[in-house]
Protein backbone atom coordinates (compact mmCIF):
# COMPACT_ATOMS: atom_id res chain seq x y z
CA UNK A 1 0.00 0.00 0.00
CA UNK A 2 3.00 2.24 -0.11
CA UNK A 3 2.92 4.81 -2.83
CA UNK A 4 5.05 4.07 -5.84
CA UNK A 5 8.29 5.76 -6.85
CA UNK A 6 6.44 7.36 -9.74
CA UNK A 7 4.04 8.82 -7.21
CA UNK A 8 6.91 10.11 -5.09
CA UNK A 9 8.42 11.62 -8.21
CA UNK A 10 5.26 13.46 -9.11
CA UNK A 11 4.78 14.66 -5.53
CA UNK A 12 8.41 15.76 -5.45
CA UNK A 13 8.13 17.52 -8.77
CA UNK A 14 4.96 19.30 -7.67
CA UNK A 15 6.78 20.43 -4.52
CA UNK A 16 9.66 21.77 -6.57
CA UNK A 17 7.31 23.65 -8.90
CA UNK A 18 5.48 25.29 -5.99
CA UNK A 19 8.85 26.42 -4.63
CA UNK A 20 10.56 27.37 -7.87
CA UNK A 21 12.76 30.17 -6.60
CA UNK A 22 13.91 28.27 -3.58
CA UNK A 23 14.65 25.17 -5.66
CA UNK A 24 16.63 27.28 -8.11
CA UNK A 25 18.69 28.92 -5.37
CA UNK A 26 19.22 25.58 -3.68
CA UNK A 27 20.71 24.08 -6.76
CA UNK A 28 23.12 26.77 -7.90
CA UNK A 29 26.03 25.12 -6.13
CA UNK A 30 25.32 21.85 -7.92
CA UNK A 31 24.94 23.56 -11.29
CA UNK A 32 28.27 25.34 -10.93
CA UNK A 33 30.02 22.26 -9.55
CA UNK A 34 28.86 20.02 -12.37
CA UNK A 35 29.58 22.68 -14.95
CA UNK A 36 33.14 23.23 -13.76
CA UNK A 37 33.89 19.51 -13.71
CA UNK A 38 32.71 19.27 -17.28
CA UNK A 39 34.52 22.34 -18.53
CA UNK A 40 37.81 21.51 -16.85
CA UNK A 41 37.85 17.91 -18.04
CA UNK A 42 36.87 18.88 -21.57
CA UNK A 43 39.57 21.54 -21.77
CA UNK A 44 42.24 19.25 -20.35
CA UNK A 45 41.19 16.49 -22.74
CA UNK A 46 41.31 18.96 -25.59
CA UNK A 47 44.72 20.32 -24.60
CA UNK A 48 46.16 16.83 -24.37
CA UNK A 49 44.78 16.00 -27.77
CA UNK A 50 46.08 19.27 -29.23
CA UNK A 51 49.54 18.64 -27.85
CA UNK A 52 49.55 15.12 -29.20
CA UNK A 53 48.48 16.42 -32.59
CA UNK A 54 51.23 19.01 -32.44
CA UNK A 55 53.78 16.36 -31.57
CA UNK A 56 52.40 14.15 -34.31
CA UNK A 57 52.88 16.94 -36.84
CA UNK A 58 56.33 17.74 -35.53
CA UNK A 59 57.80 14.27 -36.03
CA UNK A 60 55.96 12.08 -33.56
CA UNK A 61 56.85 10.53 -30.26
CA UNK A 62 60.18 9.04 -31.30
CA UNK A 63 61.66 12.45 -31.88
CA UNK A 64 64.60 13.76 -29.88
CA UNK A 65 65.70 17.37 -30.02
CA UNK A 66 68.99 18.96 -29.01
CA UNK A 67 68.74 22.70 -28.58
CA UNK A 68 70.28 25.54 -26.62
CA UNK A 69 69.86 25.36 -22.85
CA UNK A 70 68.08 28.61 -21.98
CA UNK A 71 68.98 28.19 -18.34
CA UNK A 72 72.72 28.15 -19.00
CA UNK A 73 74.71 31.20 -18.02
CA UNK A 74 76.56 31.91 -21.24
CA UNK A 75 78.63 34.64 -19.63
CA UNK A 76 80.70 31.77 -18.24
CA UNK A 77 81.82 31.16 -21.83
CA UNK A 78 80.93 28.60 -24.45
CA UNK A 79 78.37 28.81 -27.22
CA UNK A 80 75.51 26.47 -27.97
CA UNK A 81 76.47 25.34 -31.41
CA UNK A 82 78.21 22.53 -33.20
CA UNK A 83 80.56 22.40 -36.12
CA UNK A 84 80.36 19.73 -38.81
CA UNK A 85 83.15 17.70 -37.24
CA UNK A 86 81.21 17.43 -33.97
CA UNK A 87 78.04 16.56 -35.84
CA UNK A 88 79.78 13.75 -37.70
CA UNK A 89 81.19 12.48 -34.42
CA UNK A 90 77.72 12.38 -32.78
CA UNK A 91 76.27 10.62 -35.82
CA UNK A 92 78.91 7.88 -35.52
CA UNK A 93 78.09 7.40 -31.82
CA UNK A 94 74.37 6.80 -32.43
CA UNK A 95 74.07 4.30 -35.28
CA UNK A 96 70.74 3.15 -33.75
CA UNK A 97 69.08 6.50 -34.52
CA UNK A 98 66.58 6.02 -37.34
CA UNK A 99 67.10 9.55 -38.60
CA UNK A 100 69.56 12.32 -37.88
CA UNK A 101 69.17 15.94 -38.87
CA UNK A 102 71.43 18.77 -37.75
CA UNK A 103 70.26 22.15 -38.91
CA UNK A 104 71.07 25.80 -38.92
CA UNK A 105 68.82 28.70 -39.67
CA UNK A 106 69.66 32.08 -41.21
CA UNK A 107 67.85 35.25 -40.26
CA UNK A 108 65.06 35.94 -42.78
CA UNK A 109 66.30 37.61 -45.98
CA UNK A 110 64.71 38.21 -49.31
CA UNK A 111 64.60 35.36 -51.79
CA UNK A 112 64.32 36.60 -55.35
CA UNK A 113 62.82 35.14 -58.46
CA UNK A 114 62.99 37.49 -61.39
CA UNK A 115 61.26 40.70 -60.33
CA UNK A 116 59.58 39.06 -57.35
CA UNK A 117 60.93 38.88 -53.79
CA UNK A 118 59.80 37.07 -50.67
CA UNK A 119 61.39 37.28 -47.24
CA UNK A 120 61.92 33.83 -45.82
CA UNK A 121 64.12 31.85 -43.46
CA UNK A 122 66.71 29.66 -45.08
CA UNK A 123 67.66 26.45 -43.29
CA UNK A 124 70.63 24.22 -43.90
CA UNK A 125 69.60 20.61 -43.28
CA UNK A 126 70.38 16.92 -43.88
CA UNK A 127 68.32 14.64 -46.16
CA UNK A 128 66.92 13.09 -42.98
CA UNK A 129 64.88 16.19 -42.26
CA UNK A 130 61.89 14.63 -44.07
CA UNK A 131 62.14 11.65 -41.71
CA UNK A 132 62.80 13.57 -38.54
CA UNK A 133 59.92 15.93 -39.14
CA UNK A 134 57.78 13.30 -40.84
CA UNK A 135 57.28 15.83 -43.61
CA UNK A 136 57.31 14.70 -47.24
CA UNK A 137 57.94 16.74 -50.39
CA UNK A 138 54.94 17.45 -52.54
CA UNK A 139 56.65 17.85 -55.91
CA UNK A 140 60.20 17.24 -57.06
CA UNK A 141 62.63 15.77 -54.57
CA UNK A 142 64.25 16.61 -51.27
CA UNK A 143 67.93 17.28 -50.63
CA UNK A 144 69.95 14.07 -50.96
CA UNK A 145 73.36 12.83 -49.84
CA UNK A 146 74.88 13.80 -53.19
CA UNK A 147 73.80 17.40 -52.62
CA UNK A 148 75.46 17.29 -49.22
CA UNK A 149 78.66 15.71 -50.49
CA UNK A 150 78.96 18.09 -53.47
CA UNK A 151 77.72 21.27 -51.72
CA UNK A 152 75.13 21.60 -54.49
CA UNK A 153 73.31 24.91 -54.97
CA UNK A 154 69.84 23.38 -54.71
CA UNK A 155 66.85 24.55 -52.70
CA UNK A 156 63.55 23.00 -51.58
CA UNK A 157 60.78 25.53 -50.95
CA UNK A 158 58.12 25.59 -48.26
CA UNK A 159 54.65 25.69 -49.80
CA UNK A 160 54.02 29.34 -48.96
CA UNK A 161 57.45 30.42 -50.20
CA UNK A 162 56.69 28.57 -53.44
CA UNK A 163 53.31 30.19 -54.04
CA UNK A 164 54.56 33.64 -53.05
CA UNK A 165 57.28 33.48 -55.70
CA UNK A 166 55.71 31.29 -58.38
CA UNK A 167 51.94 31.51 -57.70
CA UNK A 168 50.47 28.57 -59.59
CA UNK A 169 53.43 27.85 -61.88
CA UNK A 170 55.82 25.04 -61.10
CA UNK A 171 59.02 26.27 -59.44
CA UNK A 172 60.89 23.07 -60.35
CA UNK A 173 63.98 23.72 -62.48
CA UNK A 174 63.83 27.47 -61.85
CA UNK A 175 66.59 29.47 -60.20
CA UNK A 176 66.08 31.74 -57.21
CA UNK A 177 68.61 34.06 -55.64
CA UNK A 178 69.32 34.29 -51.90
CA UNK A 179 71.96 36.73 -50.63
CA UNK A 180 73.57 36.58 -54.05
CA UNK A 181 73.59 32.80 -54.38
CA UNK A 182 71.80 31.24 -57.29
CA UNK A 183 69.90 28.18 -56.15
CA UNK A 184 68.13 25.60 -58.29
CA UNK A 185 64.65 24.71 -57.04
CA UNK A 186 64.43 20.90 -56.91
CA UNK A 187 61.34 20.41 -54.75
CA UNK A 188 58.41 21.89 -52.89
CA UNK A 189 57.33 20.65 -49.45
CA UNK A 190 53.84 19.43 -48.60
CA UNK A 191 52.01 22.25 -46.77
CA UNK A 192 51.93 21.74 -43.02
CA UNK A 193 48.73 22.50 -41.18
CA UNK A 194 47.61 22.34 -37.58
CA UNK A 195 44.55 24.19 -36.29
CA UNK A 196 45.71 27.09 -34.18
CA UNK A 197 44.74 26.91 -30.50
CA UNK A 198 44.06 29.76 -28.14
CA UNK A 199 43.46 32.43 -30.79
CA UNK A 200 47.09 32.91 -31.82
CA UNK A 201 45.99 34.98 -34.80
CA UNK A 202 49.17 36.98 -35.14
CA UNK A 203 51.24 34.21 -36.67
CA UNK A 204 49.87 32.50 -39.73
CA UNK A 205 46.22 32.94 -38.80
CA UNK A 206 44.46 29.60 -38.42
CA UNK A 207 47.57 27.55 -39.07
CA UNK A 208 49.84 27.00 -36.11
CA UNK A 209 52.56 25.57 -38.41
CA UNK A 210 52.46 28.24 -41.10
CA UNK A 211 55.99 29.39 -40.14
CA UNK A 212 57.28 26.07 -41.49
CA UNK A 213 55.64 26.67 -44.86
CA UNK A 214 57.42 30.02 -45.06
CA UNK A 215 60.86 28.43 -45.03
CA UNK A 216 63.28 27.19 -47.66
CA UNK A 217 65.83 24.39 -47.31
CA UNK A 218 69.34 23.96 -48.69
CA UNK A 219 72.01 21.31 -48.00
CA UNK A 220 73.70 22.06 -44.67
CA UNK A 221 77.09 21.82 -46.37
CA UNK A 222 76.11 24.36 -49.03
CA UNK A 223 74.86 26.82 -46.43
CA UNK A 224 77.96 26.55 -44.29
CA UNK A 225 80.48 26.64 -47.11
CA UNK A 226 78.91 29.05 -49.61
CA UNK A 227 76.02 31.05 -48.21
CA UNK A 228 77.25 32.01 -44.73
CA UNK A 229 80.57 30.56 -43.57
CA UNK A 230 80.15 32.24 -40.15
CA UNK A 231 77.01 30.29 -39.42
CA UNK A 232 77.19 27.46 -36.88
CA UNK A 233 74.93 24.48 -36.36
CA UNK A 234 72.60 25.28 -33.50
CA UNK A 235 70.13 22.48 -33.38
CA UNK A 236 69.99 18.75 -33.90
CA UNK A 237 67.00 16.44 -34.20
CA UNK A 238 66.93 12.65 -34.22
CA UNK A 239 64.41 9.88 -34.54
CA UNK A 240 64.69 6.84 -32.31
CA UNK A 241 63.54 3.52 -33.72
CA UNK A 242 60.34 3.77 -31.66
CA UNK A 243 58.88 5.88 -28.81
CA UNK A 244 59.99 3.30 -26.22
CA UNK A 245 63.66 3.54 -27.11
CA UNK A 246 63.51 7.34 -27.39
CA UNK A 247 64.14 7.78 -23.69
CA UNK A 248 67.29 5.71 -23.76
CA UNK A 249 68.56 7.40 -26.90
CA UNK A 250 67.88 10.80 -25.37
CA UNK A 251 70.10 9.97 -22.39
CA UNK A 252 72.82 8.70 -24.63
CA UNK A 253 72.75 11.82 -26.81
CA UNK A 254 72.76 13.97 -23.71
CA UNK A 255 75.90 12.24 -22.44
CA UNK A 256 77.64 12.49 -25.80
CA UNK A 257 76.87 16.19 -26.11
CA UNK A 258 77.91 16.88 -22.53
CA UNK A 259 81.13 15.03 -23.09
CA UNK A 260 81.74 16.87 -26.34
CA UNK A 261 81.26 20.23 -24.61
CA UNK A 262 83.53 19.24 -21.71
CA UNK A 263 80.77 18.96 -19.13
CA UNK A 264 79.16 22.32 -19.91
CA UNK A 265 75.36 22.07 -20.08
CA UNK A 266 75.11 24.24 -23.17
CA UNK A 267 72.39 22.05 -24.61
CA UNK A 268 69.05 20.62 -23.58
CA UNK A 269 68.03 17.26 -24.96
CA UNK A 270 64.28 16.53 -25.01
CA UNK A 271 62.36 13.54 -26.20
CA UNK A 272 58.78 13.93 -27.37
CA UNK A 273 57.75 10.75 -25.59
CA UNK A 274 58.97 12.05 -22.23
CA UNK A 275 57.51 15.47 -22.86
CA UNK A 276 54.22 13.81 -23.55
CA UNK A 277 54.45 11.74 -20.39
CA UNK A 278 55.30 14.86 -18.42
CA UNK A 279 52.37 16.65 -20.03
CA UNK A 280 50.06 13.81 -19.13
CA UNK A 281 51.28 13.90 -15.55
CA UNK A 282 50.83 17.65 -15.42
CA UNK A 283 47.36 17.57 -16.87
CA UNK A 284 46.44 14.79 -14.49
CA UNK A 285 47.58 16.85 -11.55
CA UNK A 286 45.83 19.87 -13.00
CA UNK A 287 42.53 18.09 -13.57
CA UNK A 288 42.72 16.33 -10.22
CA UNK A 289 43.09 19.67 -8.48
CA UNK A 290 40.21 21.19 -10.38
CA UNK A 291 37.95 18.20 -10.03
CA UNK A 292 38.74 18.23 -6.32
CA UNK A 293 37.74 21.88 -6.12
CA UNK A 294 34.57 21.09 -8.04
CA UNK A 295 33.82 18.15 -5.74
CA UNK A 296 34.30 20.40 -2.72
CA UNK A 297 31.90 22.91 -4.23
CA UNK A 298 29.46 20.06 -4.85
CA UNK A 299 29.76 18.99 -1.23
CA UNK A 300 29.24 22.55 -0.07
CA UNK A 301 26.26 22.69 -2.43
CA UNK A 302 25.05 19.45 -0.88
CA UNK A 303 25.31 20.88 2.63
CA UNK A 304 23.38 23.95 1.51
CA UNK A 305 20.72 21.68 0.06
CA UNK A 306 20.59 19.64 3.23
CA UNK A 307 20.04 22.73 5.31
CA UNK A 308 17.38 24.09 3.01
CA UNK A 309 15.64 20.73 3.03
CA UNK A 310 15.86 20.57 6.83
CA UNK A 311 14.30 24.01 7.00
CA UNK A 312 11.68 22.85 4.54
CA UNK A 313 10.87 19.81 6.68
CA UNK A 314 10.49 22.07 9.69
CA UNK A 315 8.32 24.49 7.79
CA UNK A 316 6.17 21.67 6.43
CA UNK A 317 5.82 19.81 9.72
CA UNK A 318 2.07 20.24 9.67
CA UNK A 319 1.81 18.99 6.10
CA UNK A 320 3.78 15.91 7.10
CA UNK A 321 1.44 15.41 10.05
CA UNK A 322 -1.55 15.60 7.71
CA UNK A 323 -0.03 13.09 5.31
CA UNK A 324 0.67 10.68 8.15
CA UNK A 325 -2.86 11.20 9.50
CA UNK A 326 -4.43 10.20 6.18
CA UNK A 327 -2.29 7.09 5.87
CA UNK A 328 1.22 7.91 4.66
CA UNK A 329 3.76 5.43 5.97
CA UNK A 330 7.21 6.40 7.23
CA UNK A 331 8.60 5.12 3.97
CA UNK A 332 6.25 7.27 1.89
CA UNK A 333 7.29 10.42 3.71
CA UNK A 334 10.96 9.42 3.58
CA UNK A 335 10.77 8.82 -0.16
CA UNK A 336 8.84 12.01 -0.79
CA UNK A 337 11.63 14.12 0.67
CA UNK A 338 14.53 12.06 -0.60
CA UNK A 339 13.15 11.94 -4.13
CA UNK A 340 12.55 15.64 -4.00
CA UNK A 341 16.15 16.34 -3.02
CA UNK A 342 17.46 13.97 -5.68
CA UNK A 343 15.21 15.59 -8.27
CA UNK A 344 16.55 19.01 -7.36
CA UNK A 345 20.19 17.94 -7.53
CA UNK A 346 19.60 15.81 -10.63
CA UNK A 347 17.92 18.73 -12.34
CA UNK A 348 20.84 20.86 -11.20
CA UNK A 349 23.16 18.31 -12.76
CA UNK A 350 21.30 18.48 -16.07
CA UNK A 351 21.36 22.27 -15.99
CA UNK A 352 25.07 22.13 -15.14
CA UNK A 353 25.71 19.89 -18.13
CA UNK A 354 23.74 22.18 -20.44
CA UNK A 355 25.54 25.22 -19.07
CA UNK A 356 28.83 23.35 -19.35
CA UNK A 357 28.14 22.71 -23.03
CA UNK A 358 27.36 26.38 -23.49
CA UNK A 359 30.61 27.43 -21.83
CA UNK A 360 32.58 24.85 -23.79
CA UNK A 361 31.00 26.10 -27.02
CA UNK A 362 32.12 29.62 -26.09
CA UNK A 363 35.61 28.46 -25.12
CA UNK A 364 35.94 26.52 -28.37
CA UNK A 365 34.71 29.37 -30.49
CA UNK A 366 36.16 32.49 -28.92
CA UNK A 367 39.33 31.15 -27.33
CA UNK A 368 39.92 28.75 -30.23
CA UNK A 369 40.73 25.93 -27.85
CA UNK A 370 40.10 22.35 -28.70
CA UNK A 371 37.63 20.93 -26.15
CA UNK A 372 36.48 17.36 -25.91
CA UNK A 373 33.27 16.57 -24.01
CA UNK A 374 32.72 12.84 -23.75
CA UNK A 375 29.46 11.00 -23.09
CA UNK A 376 31.18 9.40 -20.12
CA UNK A 377 31.62 12.83 -18.55
CA UNK A 378 27.89 13.48 -18.80
CA UNK A 379 27.13 10.24 -17.01
CA UNK A 380 29.67 11.03 -14.32
CA UNK A 381 28.18 14.49 -13.87
CA UNK A 382 24.67 13.09 -13.61
CA UNK A 383 25.69 10.34 -11.23
CA UNK A 384 27.59 12.77 -9.05
CA UNK A 385 24.65 15.15 -8.80
CA UNK A 386 22.21 12.35 -8.03
CA UNK A 387 24.70 10.99 -5.50
CA UNK A 388 24.90 14.39 -3.79
CA UNK A 389 21.09 14.37 -3.58
CA UNK A 390 21.04 10.91 -2.05
CA UNK A 391 23.81 11.74 0.38
CA UNK A 392 22.42 15.04 1.62
CA UNK A 393 18.74 14.23 1.22
CA UNK A 394 18.83 11.33 3.64
CA UNK A 395 18.96 13.30 6.87
CA UNK A 396 16.06 15.66 6.04
CA UNK A 397 14.01 12.73 4.75
CA UNK A 398 14.75 10.76 7.90
CA UNK A 399 13.76 13.68 10.07
CA UNK A 400 10.50 14.10 8.15
CA UNK A 401 9.60 10.44 8.31
CA UNK A 402 10.17 10.09 12.03
CA UNK A 403 7.96 13.01 13.04
CA UNK A 404 5.30 12.25 15.61
CA UNK A 405 1.99 12.99 13.85
CA UNK A 406 0.26 14.40 16.92
CA UNK A 407 3.16 16.75 17.59
CA UNK A 408 3.34 17.62 13.91
CA UNK A 409 -0.36 18.51 13.75
CA UNK A 410 -0.05 20.68 16.82
CA UNK A 411 2.67 22.73 15.07
CA UNK A 412 1.51 26.19 14.00
Amino acid at each position, binding site marked *: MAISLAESLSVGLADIL*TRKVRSAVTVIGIILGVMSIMVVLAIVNGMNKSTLEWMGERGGLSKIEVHQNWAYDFSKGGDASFDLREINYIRQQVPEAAAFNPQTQLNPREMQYGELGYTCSLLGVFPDMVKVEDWPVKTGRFINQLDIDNHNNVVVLGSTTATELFSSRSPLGQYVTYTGNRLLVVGVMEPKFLQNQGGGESFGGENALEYMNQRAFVPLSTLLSKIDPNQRINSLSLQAADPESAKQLRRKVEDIVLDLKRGKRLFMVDSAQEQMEQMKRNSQIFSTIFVLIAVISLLVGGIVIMNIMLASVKERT*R*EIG*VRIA*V*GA*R*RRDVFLQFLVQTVLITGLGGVLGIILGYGVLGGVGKYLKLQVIASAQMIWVALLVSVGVGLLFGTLPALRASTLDP*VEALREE
Partner: protein
Amino acid sequence: MTEIIRTANLVKDYSLGKVKVRALNGVDLTIGEGEFVAIMGPSGSGKSTLMHIIGCLDTPTSGEYHLDGVLVSEMEKNQLAMVRNRKIGFVFQSFNLLPHLNVLKNVELPLMYAGAGQKERNLKARQIIDSVGLSERLRHKPAELSGGQRQRVAIARAIVNDPAILLADEPTGNLDSQAGGDILEIFSRLHSEGNTVIIVTHDKAVANRAGRIIRIMDGRIENGDIAG
Protein backbone atom coordinates in the same frame (compact mmCIF):
# COMPACT_ATOMS: atom_id res chain seq x y z
CA MET B 1 -25.38 -3.82 17.83
CA THR B 2 -21.87 -4.78 16.69
CA GLU B 3 -19.20 -3.00 18.63
CA ILE B 4 -16.61 -1.18 16.60
CA ILE B 5 -14.53 0.43 19.32
CA ARG B 6 -13.65 -1.08 22.67
CA THR B 7 -11.05 0.27 25.01
CA ALA B 8 -9.99 -1.19 28.32
CA ASN B 9 -8.20 0.85 30.97
CA LEU B 10 -6.54 3.22 28.51
CA VAL B 11 -3.78 5.26 30.11
CA LYS B 12 -1.75 7.95 28.42
CA ASP B 13 1.11 9.69 30.16
CA TYR B 14 3.04 12.64 28.85
CA SER B 15 6.28 13.58 30.45
CA LEU B 16 7.14 17.23 30.57
CA GLY B 17 10.73 17.04 31.67
CA LYS B 18 10.57 15.43 35.12
CA VAL B 19 6.86 16.02 35.59
CA LYS B 20 4.51 13.32 34.40
CA VAL B 21 1.14 14.39 33.08
CA ARG B 22 -1.56 11.74 32.99
CA ALA B 23 -3.82 12.78 30.11
CA LEU B 24 -5.92 9.61 30.19
CA ASN B 25 -6.44 7.79 33.44
CA GLY B 26 -8.11 4.45 32.71
CA VAL B 27 -10.63 4.92 29.95
CA ASP B 28 -13.10 2.08 29.34
CA LEU B 29 -15.24 2.80 26.34
CA THR B 30 -17.37 0.85 23.95
CA ILE B 31 -18.91 2.32 20.82
CA GLY B 32 -21.19 0.39 18.51
CA GLU B 33 -21.20 0.42 14.74
CA GLY B 34 -23.38 3.17 13.34
CA GLU B 35 -23.47 5.19 16.56
CA PHE B 36 -23.31 8.98 16.68
CA VAL B 37 -21.35 9.89 19.82
CA ALA B 38 -20.49 13.30 21.19
CA ILE B 39 -17.57 13.61 23.58
CA MET B 40 -17.74 16.57 25.90
CA GLY B 41 -15.65 17.86 28.73
CA PRO B 42 -13.65 20.83 29.86
CA SER B 43 -10.51 21.93 28.15
CA GLY B 44 -7.51 19.81 29.13
CA SER B 45 -9.67 16.89 30.20
CA GLY B 46 -8.12 14.53 27.65
CA LYS B 47 -10.63 14.59 24.77
CA SER B 48 -8.08 15.15 22.04
CA THR B 49 -5.73 12.61 23.53
CA LEU B 50 -8.49 10.03 23.43
CA MET B 51 -9.39 10.94 19.86
CA HIS B 52 -5.75 10.63 18.77
CA ILE B 53 -5.54 7.15 20.24
CA ILE B 54 -8.86 6.12 18.73
CA GLY B 55 -7.65 7.60 15.44
CA CYS B 56 -4.39 5.62 15.66
CA LEU B 57 -2.33 8.80 15.53
CA ASP B 58 -1.01 7.97 18.96
CA THR B 59 -0.57 4.88 21.08
CA PRO B 60 -1.62 4.49 24.72
CA THR B 61 0.94 4.14 27.49
CA SER B 62 -1.03 1.13 28.69
CA GLY B 63 -4.40 -0.45 28.19
CA GLU B 64 -6.05 -2.08 25.23
CA TYR B 65 -7.77 -0.69 22.21
CA HIS B 66 -9.75 -2.86 19.80
CA LEU B 67 -10.90 -1.35 16.52
CA ASP B 68 -13.29 -3.38 14.43
CA GLY B 69 -12.24 -6.49 16.39
CA VAL B 70 -8.52 -5.90 15.91
CA LEU B 71 -6.17 -5.08 18.77
CA VAL B 72 -4.54 -1.92 17.44
CA SER B 73 -2.84 -0.81 20.68
CA GLU B 74 -0.12 -3.39 19.95
CA MET B 75 0.37 -2.56 16.31
CA GLU B 76 3.57 -1.20 14.90
CA LYS B 77 3.86 2.02 12.93
CA ASN B 78 3.37 0.76 9.38
CA GLN B 79 0.31 -1.23 10.32
CA LEU B 80 -1.10 1.82 12.07
CA ALA B 81 -0.57 3.81 8.88
CA MET B 82 -2.69 1.26 7.05
CA VAL B 83 -5.40 1.46 9.72
CA ARG B 84 -5.42 5.26 9.57
CA ASN B 85 -5.70 5.11 5.84
CA ARG B 86 -8.45 2.48 5.55
CA LYS B 87 -10.47 2.52 8.75
CA ILE B 88 -10.32 6.08 10.02
CA GLY B 89 -11.41 9.44 8.78
CA PHE B 90 -10.19 12.33 10.91
CA VAL B 91 -11.57 15.86 10.84
CA PHE B 92 -9.64 18.54 12.76
CA GLN B 93 -10.71 21.82 14.24
CA SER B 94 -8.18 23.67 12.10
CA PHE B 95 -9.06 21.78 8.85
CA ASN B 96 -5.47 20.73 8.15
CA LEU B 97 -5.70 20.92 4.38
CA LEU B 98 -2.48 21.06 2.37
CA PRO B 99 -2.31 24.71 1.31
CA HIS B 100 -0.59 24.23 -2.07
CA LEU B 101 -2.92 21.44 -3.23
CA ASN B 102 -6.33 22.22 -4.72
CA VAL B 103 -9.57 20.76 -3.39
CA LEU B 104 -9.46 17.75 -5.69
CA LYS B 105 -5.85 16.90 -4.83
CA ASN B 106 -6.48 17.29 -1.11
CA VAL B 107 -9.36 14.86 -1.26
CA GLU B 108 -7.37 12.44 -3.42
CA LEU B 109 -4.59 12.25 -0.83
CA PRO B 110 -5.86 9.25 1.20
CA LEU B 111 -6.62 7.43 -2.06
CA MET B 112 -3.05 7.99 -3.20
CA TYR B 113 -1.68 6.46 0.00
CA ALA B 114 -4.19 3.64 -0.44
CA GLY B 115 -2.47 2.90 -3.74
CA ALA B 116 -5.41 3.74 -5.98
CA GLY B 117 -4.73 4.59 -9.62
CA GLN B 118 -5.07 8.13 -10.88
CA LYS B 119 -8.38 7.44 -12.64
CA GLU B 120 -10.02 5.81 -9.65
CA ARG B 121 -8.78 8.57 -7.37
CA ASN B 122 -10.14 11.26 -9.58
CA LEU B 123 -13.51 9.58 -9.95
CA LYS B 124 -14.01 8.83 -6.25
CA ALA B 125 -12.74 12.20 -5.09
CA ARG B 126 -15.09 14.04 -7.46
CA GLN B 127 -18.06 11.99 -6.23
CA ILE B 128 -17.29 12.73 -2.59
CA ILE B 129 -16.64 16.41 -3.25
CA ASP B 130 -19.98 16.56 -5.02
CA SER B 131 -21.66 14.99 -1.99
CA VAL B 132 -20.43 17.85 0.22
CA GLY B 133 -21.55 20.39 -2.36
CA LEU B 134 -18.19 21.63 -3.61
CA SER B 135 -18.19 20.46 -7.25
CA GLU B 136 -17.70 24.04 -8.35
CA ARG B 137 -14.56 24.42 -6.28
CA LEU B 138 -12.46 21.47 -7.49
CA ARG B 139 -9.50 23.58 -8.62
CA HIS B 140 -9.58 26.05 -5.75
CA LYS B 141 -6.80 26.21 -3.22
CA PRO B 142 -7.85 26.10 0.47
CA ALA B 143 -6.97 29.79 0.89
CA GLU B 144 -9.63 30.64 -1.69
CA LEU B 145 -12.38 28.96 0.34
CA SER B 146 -14.43 30.01 3.38
CA GLY B 147 -13.95 28.23 6.70
CA GLY B 148 -17.13 26.20 6.24
CA GLN B 149 -16.04 25.17 2.74
CA ARG B 150 -12.62 24.15 4.00
CA GLN B 151 -14.16 21.98 6.68
CA ARG B 152 -16.37 20.36 4.03
CA VAL B 153 -13.25 19.56 2.01
CA ALA B 154 -11.72 18.07 5.17
CA ILE B 155 -14.81 15.92 5.69
CA ALA B 156 -14.70 14.82 2.05
CA ARG B 157 -11.06 13.83 2.56
CA ALA B 158 -11.95 11.95 5.75
CA ILE B 159 -14.67 9.85 4.13
CA VAL B 160 -13.23 9.31 0.66
CA ASN B 161 -11.69 5.96 1.63
CA ASP B 162 -14.97 4.84 3.16
CA PRO B 163 -13.61 4.45 6.71
CA ALA B 164 -15.11 2.41 9.53
CA ILE B 165 -15.23 5.42 11.85
CA LEU B 166 -15.36 9.14 11.34
CA LEU B 167 -13.63 11.17 14.06
CA ALA B 168 -13.98 14.92 14.44
CA ASP B 169 -12.18 16.97 17.10
CA GLU B 170 -14.16 20.18 17.61
CA PRO B 171 -14.99 20.44 13.88
CA THR B 172 -17.16 23.51 14.33
CA GLY B 173 -14.84 25.24 16.79
CA ASN B 174 -13.41 27.59 14.19
CA LEU B 175 -16.70 28.25 12.37
CA ASP B 176 -19.56 30.70 12.78
CA SER B 177 -22.91 29.20 13.75
CA GLN B 178 -24.23 29.18 10.17
CA ALA B 179 -21.25 27.27 8.81
CA GLY B 180 -21.14 25.10 11.93
CA GLY B 181 -24.79 24.19 11.32
CA ASP B 182 -23.98 23.15 7.73
CA ILE B 183 -21.16 20.94 8.95
CA LEU B 184 -23.37 19.39 11.59
CA GLU B 185 -25.91 18.62 8.86
CA ILE B 186 -23.27 16.72 6.94
CA PHE B 187 -22.28 14.66 9.99
CA SER B 188 -25.94 13.90 10.68
CA ARG B 189 -26.43 12.79 7.11
CA LEU B 190 -23.34 10.59 7.22
CA HIS B 191 -24.63 9.06 10.45
CA SER B 192 -28.03 8.41 8.91
CA GLU B 193 -26.28 6.70 5.99
CA GLY B 194 -24.86 4.21 8.50
CA ASN B 195 -21.51 5.71 9.40
CA THR B 196 -20.07 5.63 12.90
CA VAL B 197 -19.44 9.24 13.92
CA ILE B 198 -17.56 10.45 16.99
CA ILE B 199 -17.38 14.18 17.57
CA VAL B 200 -15.59 16.11 20.29
CA THR B 201 -17.51 19.30 20.88
CA HIS B 202 -18.42 22.10 23.25
CA ASP B 203 -21.44 22.89 21.10
CA LYS B 204 -24.81 21.96 22.63
CA ALA B 205 -26.41 21.87 19.19
CA VAL B 206 -23.96 19.19 18.11
CA ALA B 207 -24.39 17.24 21.30
CA ASN B 208 -28.16 17.32 20.92
CA ARG B 209 -27.92 15.60 17.55
CA ALA B 210 -25.75 12.82 18.94
CA GLY B 211 -27.23 9.53 20.04
CA ARG B 212 -25.02 9.50 23.09
CA ILE B 213 -22.93 11.97 25.02
CA ILE B 214 -19.75 10.85 26.74
CA ARG B 215 -18.48 13.21 29.39
CA ILE B 216 -14.84 13.23 30.19
CA MET B 217 -13.13 14.75 33.21
CA ASP B 218 -9.48 14.61 34.23
CA GLY B 219 -8.79 11.76 31.86
CA ARG B 220 -11.72 9.63 32.99
CA ILE B 221 -15.15 9.01 31.59
CA GLU B 222 -17.75 10.41 33.99
CA ASN B 223 -20.99 8.88 32.91
CA GLY B 224 -19.43 5.59 31.96
CA ASP B 225 -21.19 3.79 29.18
CA ILE B 226 -24.71 4.90 29.92
CA ALA B 227 -26.69 5.53 26.75
CA GLY B 228 -27.79 9.15 26.44
